[in-house]
């Protein structure tokens, strides 16, 4: 082969240096991809806010004049056909009826008498029963023993107890009975303690049942008070609630609309028009940034990863004695270790630059709501000198894609 050659030493050194460069470029491009996720969420939120603000500006209220204006500006005809005012009135009647029903309910009408803190009749009854219950619960708690239930079931301490003295359980029962009896100093025998325990248990069950009923009655009353409060609050904010719901629907309508449809309608409403432009522009911005990351940055990253694998394989190969005399033509070496890396580097730089250019764009007033408006041109402030590039860009943008010629990293 003719021409100058590069020896193994230089080849290995260049490979090592290139590997280090690749690691840096992978880190840099990964950083951009990582940031994109967070930026995307912020942009989605900003787009939603812009559209919500546009809906608020377009629909000032639910009166006839406001509805007519909103339909004229946005073409959202459900504002006429579905009669929002009738919806408000239906809900108002429903709320008023329920509030009247609650206010006639003794649980609400007698709320002070029943549930006033410390003095309400229900409150007093519950407190008194809790006091009575406490002494009984203390007896039951005092009797607690792992063997108590068995002693009660077998009739320990009474004639009903039939466990033979040759059984171990007879002695275990005896021990447990003595331990329980120690906690009832006034009882002369386990039989007396058992009577006291059983009486306390029965009374406790009665009190607990009554307490549960009183607490349910109390809680039902509290619930109905809360329901009335909620209904009264809903009634007070009824107009705003419905207005908010209709604005949400209008915001969704604006998001789904072809921007060109709004262009003429919003001609005399510069503030509203700006908000719509912002909403539409943010949607385009998100799409462009997604494309830059997924369709332009990803292939560059794949090329870097592939190159890294190849270099690693080659370095292993060069370490073997049989490749000690390996050489490479100088021109091929230059293409491999100078030209191609430079092109990949340029691709990353270009994607990064365009990502930041588009991301920082906020001159929404410079947009127009017309067919085939070139958002890409506006956001990148692109001027083409080459006719082919310009045509490719225009065609791509018209189809809502990022022009490949702008971002070609190969």
């Amino acid at each position, binding site marked *: 082969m003719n021409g100058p050659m590069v020896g193994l030493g230089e080849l290995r050194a260049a490979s090592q240096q290139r590997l280090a460069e690749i690691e840096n470029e992978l880190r840099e491009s990964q950083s951009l991809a990582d940031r994109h996720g967070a930026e995307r969420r912020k942009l989605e939120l900003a787009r939603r806010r812009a559209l919500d603000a546009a809906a608020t500006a377009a629909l000032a209220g639910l009166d006839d004049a406001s509805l007519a204006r909103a339909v004229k500006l946005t073409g959202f005809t459900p504002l006429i056909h579905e009669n929002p005012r009738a919806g408000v009135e239906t809900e108002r009647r429903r709320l008023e009826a329920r509030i009247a029903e609650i206010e006639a309910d003794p649980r609400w009408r007698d709320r002070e008498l029943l549930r006033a803190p410390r003095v309400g009749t229900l409150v007093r009854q519950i407190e008194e029963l809790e006091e009575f219950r406490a002494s009984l619960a203390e007896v039951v708690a005092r009797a607690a023993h792992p063997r108590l239930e068995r002693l009660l079931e077998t009739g320990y301490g009474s004639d009903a107890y039939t466990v*033979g*003295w*040759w*059984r*171990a*359980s007879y*002695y*275990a029962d005896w*021990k447990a009975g003595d331990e329980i009896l120690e906690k009832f100093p006034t009882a002369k025998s386990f039989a007396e303690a058992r009577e006291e325990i059983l009486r306390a248990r029965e009374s406790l069950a009665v009190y607990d049942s009554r307490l549960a009923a009183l607490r349910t009655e109390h809680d039902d009353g509290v619930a109905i008070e809360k329901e009335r409060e909620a209904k009264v609050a809903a009634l007070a904010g009824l107009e705003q609630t419905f207005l908010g719901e209709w604005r949400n629907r209008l915001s969704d309508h604006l998001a789904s609309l072809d921007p060109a449809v709004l262009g003429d309608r919003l001609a005399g409403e510069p503030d509203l028009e700006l908000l719509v432009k912002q909403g539409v522009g943010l949607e385009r911005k998100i799409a462009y940034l997604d494309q830059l990351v997924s369709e332009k940055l990803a292939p560059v990253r794949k090329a870097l990863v592939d190159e890294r694998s190849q270099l690693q394989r080659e370095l292993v190969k060069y370490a073997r004695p049989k490749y000690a005399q390996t050489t490479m033509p100088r021109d091929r070496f230059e293409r491999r270790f100078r030209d191609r890396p430079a092109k990949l580097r340029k691709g990353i730089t270009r994607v990064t630059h365009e990502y930041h250019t588009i991301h920082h764009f906020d001159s929404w007033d410079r947009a127009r709501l017309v067919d085939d408006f070139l958002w890409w041109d506006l956001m990148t402030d692109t001027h083409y000198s080459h006719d082919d590039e310009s045509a490719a860009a225009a065609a791509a943008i018209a189809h809502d894609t990022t022009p490949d010629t702008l971002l070609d990293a190969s």
Partner: protein
Amino acid sequence: MDERAGRAVLRARFEAAGLHIAEDHPLDVDGHRVTADGFDAERGIGYEYLTREAGDHAELHPAAVAALEAHAQAGDLVLFLVDEIEVASAEELAALADGFLDTLRARGRLA
């Protein structure tokens, strides 16, 4: 406690009370074949530590237990019956055995 450990505790307590224990002693209790874990044939006193591991519950079926209880009631053959589920430790088993041996003394069956 497993079969071996339970039997060891019982044997120690019964022998400490002066009984001469033979292990795995065969008994014919009104036609029921029962092998006592420990038994003093001269005094007619012994013990059975019932474990699932040894299959004791199959051997001591209700009819055999009823026969044993009848003899214990009569006082001519007394087997101390301990189910493994009744005891959690060697100390507890020893205390139960001592209670039984005290009862035998109170009834004049032991010095």
